């Protein structure tokens, strides 16, 4: 694995490794008659990679949406710790949650399609930059210096994720795999304390998956960013995660180290043994 010396600090967390970072407690989320989350509790600690797995419709994406403030749970709390403060994410607007260090990617890729790769990454710096409408329109002094400074940071992220050759391309014209990578780049620009990745490898070929797994490990191990990811590929999950939470019909049916979860009879039943058996073999 290559070591990247970066001037841009990628990790936005002020916690020490192992500290409690995210505390989801008894979260209930309903859509009309559908209960997407039926009292979910789980935690992440600073510096770990936690995977959320579960069959389709189990509520994985819903949980991520609650954490990033897009959905408001009817009950429960989601506490997030950073900079010696504790925040209840169920009461904060998404843009404020972004500002305190929660970044994410989306299951269906939500890039800014008519921007270049570079501009997508630059827009990830939004909460760290200061230029407003007036100073931007004038493009004098500070505004210009800020652009140049962050442009250099963007190049560091581009190097890290090996997307040099496409930096000036419109993201709409890129392959699915590359778009996923750009989405990771944009999320990294936010300097996340907690990085939420919703199926970062879905729809990729084996080689692309391997690259993505390497980048995720790189970001976690070398830069210390806590990662919470949803993934269907059990091989990848068992390989890279420190802890696995299993959701089924909105309930947590397993939580532990990958090898523990793999042996959990309830989990095996939910999955009918198939995928887990595959990943073991």
């Amino acid at each position, binding site marked *: 694995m290559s070591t990247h010396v970066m001037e841009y600090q990628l990790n936005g967390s002020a916690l020490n490794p192992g500290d409690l970072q995210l505390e989801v407690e008894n979260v209930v989320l309903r859509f009309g008659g559908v209960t997407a989350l039926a009292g979910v509790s789980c935690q992440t600690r600073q510096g770990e990679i936690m995977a959320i797995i579960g069959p389709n419709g189990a509520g994985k994406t819903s949980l991520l949406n609650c954490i990033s403030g897009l959905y408001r749970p009817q009950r429960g709390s989601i506490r997030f710790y950073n900079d010696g403060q504790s925040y209840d994410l169920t009461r904060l607007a998404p843009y404020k*949650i972004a500002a305190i260090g929660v970044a994410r990617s989306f299951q269906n890729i*939500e890039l800014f399609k*008519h*921007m270049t790769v570079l501009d997508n990454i630059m827009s990830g710096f939004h909460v760290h930059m200061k230029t407003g409408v007036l100073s*931007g329109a004038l*493009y004098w002094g500070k505004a210009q210096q800020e652009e*140049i400074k962050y*442009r250099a940071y963007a190049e560091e992220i581009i190097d890290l994720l090996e997307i040099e050759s496409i930096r000036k391309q419109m993201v709409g014209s890129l392959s699915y795999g590359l778009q996923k990578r750009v989405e990771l780049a944009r999320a990294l620009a936010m300097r996340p304390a907690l990085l939420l990745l919703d199926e970062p490898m879905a729809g990729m070929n084996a080689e692309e998956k391997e690259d993505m797994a390497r980048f995720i490990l790189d970001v976690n191990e070398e830069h210390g960013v806590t990662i919470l990811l949803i993934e269907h590929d059990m091989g990848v999950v068992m390989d890279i995660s420190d802890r696995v939470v299993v959701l089924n019909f909105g309930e947590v049916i397993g939580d532990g180290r990958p090898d523990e979860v793999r042996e959990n009879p309830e989990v095996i039943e939910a999955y009918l043994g198939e995928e887990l058996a595959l990943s073991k073999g």
Partner: protein
Amino acid sequence: MQSGIFHSSYQKDMALRHTPAQKVRLLLIIVFLLIFPFLADNYYLTLANQIGIAVIGAVGLNILTGFTGQISLGTGAFLAVGAYTAALLAIRFNMPMWITIPAGALMTALVGGLFGIPSLRLKGLYLAIATLAAQVIIIWVVTHWDTVTGGVDALFVKNYLWFDGQQVRFNEFKFYWIIMAVAVLVVMAAVNLFRTRPGRAFIAIRDQDIAAEVMGVNVFRYKVAAFATSSFMIGLAGALIAHWRQIVTWERFTIEVSILYLAMIIIGGLGSISGSIYGAIFMTLLPAFLLNVGQSLGSAIPFMDRIIPFIQQAVFGIVIIVFLIFEPEGIAKMWRNIKDYFRLWPFSY
């Protein structure tokens, strides 16, 4: 042969103009703008001033609709706010133009920002209807608030004050310099805006508002900011119209004007500053051209007089439709295609 453009430093890479050809073209445009008024007669000066004002308004509307994705049918009314504010300050308080014009723009920014508030909840067609309401309400206020606006009667902007106490009579030639200066400043401001943080936030909202919010963009605040910024520029155009035409009446600011401006940015290119300029030029020159052709035809064939206005309307409409069918991304895109062709010329394809 150029195989592409490479840059050694980020600052150079971030510069707006990269190739010598681009620099030469900019220089030619500047030289043209500087010598044009000395060569042109009053007719062409009037056209140029009309284009300049249209450029200012079109850039303003494009910031809101093309770049931020918030459709607006209120441009006519926002022009009216700028025009009436400037005219009333000049008439009632004898204020010089260098105050009335910025004041008109600021007032329009305020009103525009206010009417931008529904954009928090409304999108697409629903927002279009809300801005249509702005158009109707503002014009209603203008025509019914007789004591202040003079109601349906025209306002005559008689004074030509520039600096305090100093009466300068502004003719087309002198106005050319004011209008062009404002237009150049507005274009530069817009270009700068979209290579910095706030401009990216606007585009982010247009492309994917949920992702924008999750990236830390306060979407509501930025939408209102887009309305205010856009309206500021439209207000500038309105205030300039008041002083340039010396007569302000609500009939110049109807929904048709709103639609004309929308047509400018659609034909020029949504989300493109240069497109706003092309669109403003095209939509100002086309009717003038059709009028000229119509007049010469009318004098040649007597009975044509009566049908020519209809033919003009039809041709105007057809040209717009043809554009939308063959180059939906507007003149800006056509121009890019031409440039791309010549950049690698003679090795293109």
